[in-house]
């Protein structure tokens, strides 16, 4: 019970026996905080990701939810090794890639691609769409110019873009179309893992639905594995097989999607779910039963002692203020870090 939380947590049980594509073990990423204009002295650090262990199983869509500042984007950049962790290990297809250099990682880059939130700033405005999508192939000298061009056109068609628009520039496209360009660019290297960081949150609802459907179709067609990051719980539910909930640099709960939404174990998950507005006439009644969290997310530079959620938790007791709860299995395939679990019968 009082196992120090930073110690290793056994890799989380896989529900179907599927093998992991990526294993993340005890990963920590601290960013130094400096004061002073140029070479200020280090003034503590922001614990963006603070001991996270999880597995991304081959063929699944793992959702990652949490509020801004919880470390979900940092975790994504660690999984894709755009950042090097302060400690912990990242294993890709059985190989430890934690400390690989950029050069050594290069062949891996085609396997792991990202889709970004903002389709406006993630596309080079001075290059044609065809050049943007085909760039990864060009860099790797794959095929001839003509075959690359054909491949790009095929993919444009597949993601719902008009191949005739090959020579247009990003500004000539709407937000939804630009996101399709980003998706085509990610798919061109036939990746195994796609890390999508808030891929639909900048889009209008009617367009959001188009992109979500596209991502689901592509997943089965190209046998993709997704790490899907979003703050919108409705969206995450829609695409994910399993969902991990993050709070202040830690995973507080991870479970199969239906189980999590039906019976959350961690009070943070419970509060997060109850805060989601639903477009129903009974929304008003829901508001009355809502758990409104007091205060704000504490600064990740100085996380509270014990359970990080305790200052905002309505179930908090003395033990929560001193002992950090470990992430332990609560139900089959469902783990949560909490001293007073909900929805688990006994206790």
């Amino acid at each position, binding site marked *: 019970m009082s196992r120090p939380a930073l110690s290793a947590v056994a890799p989380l049980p896989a529900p179907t026996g599927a093998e992991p594509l990526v294993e993340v073990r005890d990963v920590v990423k601290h960013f130094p905080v400096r004061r002073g204009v140029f070479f200020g002295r280090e003034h503590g650090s922001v614990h963006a990701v603070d001991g996270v262990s999880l597995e991304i199983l081959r063929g699944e869509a793992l959702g990652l939810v949490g509020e801004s500042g919880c470390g979900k984007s940092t975790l994504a950049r660690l999984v894709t090794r755009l950042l090097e962790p302060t400690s912990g290990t990242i294993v890709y297809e059985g190989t430890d890639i934690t400390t690989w250099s950029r050069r050594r990682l290069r062949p891996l880059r085609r396997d792991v691609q990202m889709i970004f939130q903002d389709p406006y700033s993630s596309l080079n405005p001075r290059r044609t769409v065809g050049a943007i999508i085909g760039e990864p192939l060009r860099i790797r000298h794959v095929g001839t110019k003509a075959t690359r061009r054909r491949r790009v056109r095929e993919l444009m068609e597949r993601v719902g873009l008009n191949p005739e628009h090959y020579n247009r520039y990003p500004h000539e496209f709407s937000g939804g179309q630009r996101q399709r360009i980003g998706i085509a660019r990610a798919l061109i290297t036939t990746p195994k893992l796609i890390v999508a960081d808030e891929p639909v949150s900048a889009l209008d609802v009617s367009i959001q*639905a188009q992109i979500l459907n596209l991502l689901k179709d592509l997943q089965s067609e190209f046998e993709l594995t997704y790490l899907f990051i979003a703050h919108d719980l409705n*969206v995450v539910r829609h*695409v994910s097989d399993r969902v991990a909930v993050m709070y202040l640099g830690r995973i507080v709960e991870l479970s199969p999607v239906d189980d999590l939404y039906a019976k959350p174990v961690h009070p943070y998950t419970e509060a997060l779910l109850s805060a989601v507005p639903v477009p129903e006439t009974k929304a008003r009644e829901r508001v009355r039963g809502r758990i409104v969290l007091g205060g704000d997310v504490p600064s990740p530079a100085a996380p509270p002692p014990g359970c990080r959620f305790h200052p905002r938790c309505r179930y908090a007791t003395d033990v929560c203020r001193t002992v950090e709860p470990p992430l332990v299995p609560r139900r089959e395939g469902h783990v949560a870090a909490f001293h007073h679990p909900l929805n688990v019968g006994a206790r």
Partner: protein
Amino acid sequence: MALLEIEDLRVHFNTRDGVVRAVDGVSLTLDRHETLGIVGESGSGKSVTALTVMGLTRLPNAVVEGRVLLDGVDLLALPLHELRRIRGSRVAMVFQDPMSSLHPLYKVGWQIVEAIRAHGDVPKDVARRRAVQALADVGIPSPAERMDSYPHELSGGMRQRAMIAMALVLDPDVLIADEPTTALDVTVQAQILDVIRRLQAERGAAVALITHDLGVVAETADQLAVMYAGRVVERGPLATVLDAPEHPYTWGLLQSIPRLEAGPQRLQPIAGTPPSLIHVPSGCSFHPRCPYAFALCPEIVPPLVLSQPGHDVACHLPPAKRQAIGRRLRSEDDASGGLAAG
């Protein structure tokens, strides 16, 4: 007579690329104790409507037609110095991004005090007491200390509370909130919506809540107006519009939202993209994306007419047919678990 009446409002902007028809014939009414939700996607004209009510579209390249009546006085016809007296004291606005609407170099308290003193000869210490009270009212802990904070020292949720405090400190009759929670996390959004609901219940102000999120509207508004390409396509009591929507665009919106309760079935997006406001489609501007469009739709703009008491719809489909389709879509939704207990 309603407190605020918007009559056939048109706002067109002359730009290098052509005339942008941002608002194209919008009529809305808002009464005391009432919350009107205005929903629509980007470019639907909801924000420009709000800005025009505040007199913030008086620009050299803007052509504004129609009337905005506050207690019978047309705000569009008022000279600027008179409008300024009304702005803030009788009609106040909260914007989406509190960081860009608070001055970064002045303390939060100073900015609220200034708002109070701009509208009346109030002694500084009295104004300060009122500002502290306003911060306390929106649920800011230790408000007296927060008076001396700069905007960057507050979190996003606290900044938005400070904005609401500033908007409400002069007890306006109308509060316009333009996407007040869009930049915030869900748990903080829940807090802010709570504040808006509570203050409205206490003070009886009329609230216009502009959002793209039907969920936010569902838990806050009494009346609902759905906008598309500069026009209101459907409006009525919240329950009617959500439970028995009659406009194909509203159907599309409701169907394209992923829901917590629903299983992960396929979403039904609206085909195509929202139109450019420079080249608005002829007739009903939704017709290129509407699966039910017929010969009349590209020809004539459908007027917003009464379908049932209090429920107006701008669609050429016969009401009986619309209601039948609406019922069918609803029951399909039910069958697929879209309305399971929440």
